[in-house]
């Protein structure tokens, strides 16, 4: 039983890590064919992508869209959760349902709906349009996480602050937000990740200023080269580094 469990664990780790390992190994492949036999190692694909202006711009675009859309989703979700946690609004179950609804819809549908609406009103595809779409998908997430972490204790602290004379914004700024910091951070982090890696909305709602996933998609479709592997590896290593840093700092205190 015990041996079986560990064997299963290792097998699953193997399955889960296999594509990543292959990806990284073949990013050092010397020929253009990313299949065995391995004839590397070379760093030329890394040199190539670092010199690739479009790719680097896409990376910055992705960062920008992810940062801003996550921040907007976070603020909107935080305010909505605070409002709903505070008073029993008429129809608050319905409001919660509406706010959560986009979470249960495929991204493709959200993208298509926005694409048609932006077309109809004459808004061109752009990073802003993409960001708007990313807020739509991340708002429910942020709202749900924050709302779920607003316990009785939180509500009472907010009431106490009001009782002591705090105006509404002071309650949110001095009490609510700092108390919810771990959830806010978790929500932001998750939203950031989702936006950063989102493809279909960005694909349909951008044109020239594309995000990284879209740029990688075009790379895949415009020439066979291990540069794709190199991009994938870099994204992976940088993200893992960030996750590790967060793990060791922000989330350490929260325990398992």
């Amino acid at each position: 039983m015990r041996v079986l469990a560990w064997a299963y664990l290792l097998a699953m780790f193997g399955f889960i890590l296999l594509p990543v390992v292959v990806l990284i190994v073949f990013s050092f492949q010397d020929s253009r064919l990313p299949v065995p036999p391995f004839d590397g190692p070379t760093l030329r694909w890394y040199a190539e992508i670092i010199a690739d202006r479009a790719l680097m711009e896409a990376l910055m675009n992705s960062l920008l869209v992810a940062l801003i859309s996550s921040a907007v989703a976070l603020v909107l979700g935080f305010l909505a959760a605070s409002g709903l946690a505070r008073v029993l609004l008429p129809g608050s179950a319905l409001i919660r349902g509406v706010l959560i609804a986009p979470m249960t819809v495929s991204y493709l549908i959200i993208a298509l709906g926005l694409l048609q609406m932006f077309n109809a009103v004459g808004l061109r595809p752009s990073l802003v349009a993409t960001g708007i779409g990313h807020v739509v998908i991340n708002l429910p997430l942020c709202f749900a996480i924050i709302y779920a972490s607003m316990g009785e204790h939180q509500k009472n602290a907010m009431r106490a602050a009001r009782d002591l004379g705090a105006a509404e914004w002071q309650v949110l700024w001095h009490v609510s937000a700092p108390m919810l910091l771990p959830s806010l951070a978790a929500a932001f982090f998750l939203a950031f990740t989702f936006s950063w890696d989102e493809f279909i909305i960005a694909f349909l709602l951008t044109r020239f200023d594309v995000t990284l996933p879209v740029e990688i998609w075009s790379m895949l479709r415009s020439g066979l080269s291990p540069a794709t592997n190199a991009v994938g590896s870099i994204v992976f290593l940088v993200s893992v580094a960030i996750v590790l840093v967060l793990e060791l700092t922000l989330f350490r205190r929260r325990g398992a």
Partner: protein
Amino acid sequence: EDLNALIWCDHADPALLEPFEQAHDVRVNVKEYEGTAAGLTLLEQSRPGDWDVMVIDAVDVGRAVERGFLAPLPADQLPTADFFPEVVLQDHTTIDGQTYAVTEKFGYNTLAFNKAKVDAADMESLGALWSGKYDGRIAIYDYYLPVLGLVGLQDGIATKDLDAAALDKIREPLMSLKAASRQVSDVVASQTALATGEVDVLIGGGEWLTAVLNAENPDLDWTIPKEGGLLWAQSIAMVEGTERPELALEFIKYITSPEGQARLATSSCYWGMPVNKMAGDVLTDEQKAILRWDDQAEYLSRAQLYPVPNAATDTAMQDLWTEMLQN
């Protein structure tokens, strides 16, 4: 300043764009598409001024002009005199005496294969793909016009005769071709499949598929079988409503200049013959060998143009294609 171009993937190569960008201190924004219908759909959703130039199959220029997407070009400023005459395709790029596009690159959709794994003699007939010998080793290029054209040729139907009635005839062979094949894929996926040994034959392939991989796998080869092949010829045009007509024209001139032509012929996504003969002075002998520069006259004589369907036939073709993908 920006120039917005709607292109096939070969125009995304920085080696092609950067010299122009530097010379004119502009930035060329490109958006890739594959297949005329997709390009026209993109234009449909755009507003005037969104696009400055577009790359489009020469035979489809009429479809674009008909819907008012293209702006006239000053024919006298274009180096068509230096072109291979067979690919100027005046009939298609000029409508009512007005020139709307200029061809820029050409090649063939026929059979590409791995000669280490395939009997090259078999490739002299399209029929080999239906013979059962290569079942499971075939890939289909995912563009309905050339592949339907090839299936038609196999059935003795010329591309210009590929109408709704003819489509009915080729349904059966198309479906059995699908059954014999392993995958249906776009440019790069097709290249990958052939280069990595995933498949041995690609119908719809040609130099555009093998040339770029010559260094990686010299066994990749292509041929025009006895039934004939399809000539692809892409052209470049100015989009109606552009706010930078001069710059757009400069870009078209650059692409059709000998230097531009040479770079385009050997761009990273796929290689293809330049239409401007003067590019021969810029290309190396090795490159010209890979492009089979000297064999073009013979090839051209055996190739037919893409089918040019009307709207109803186009829909029927797409439906047939979707059906093929789905079965």
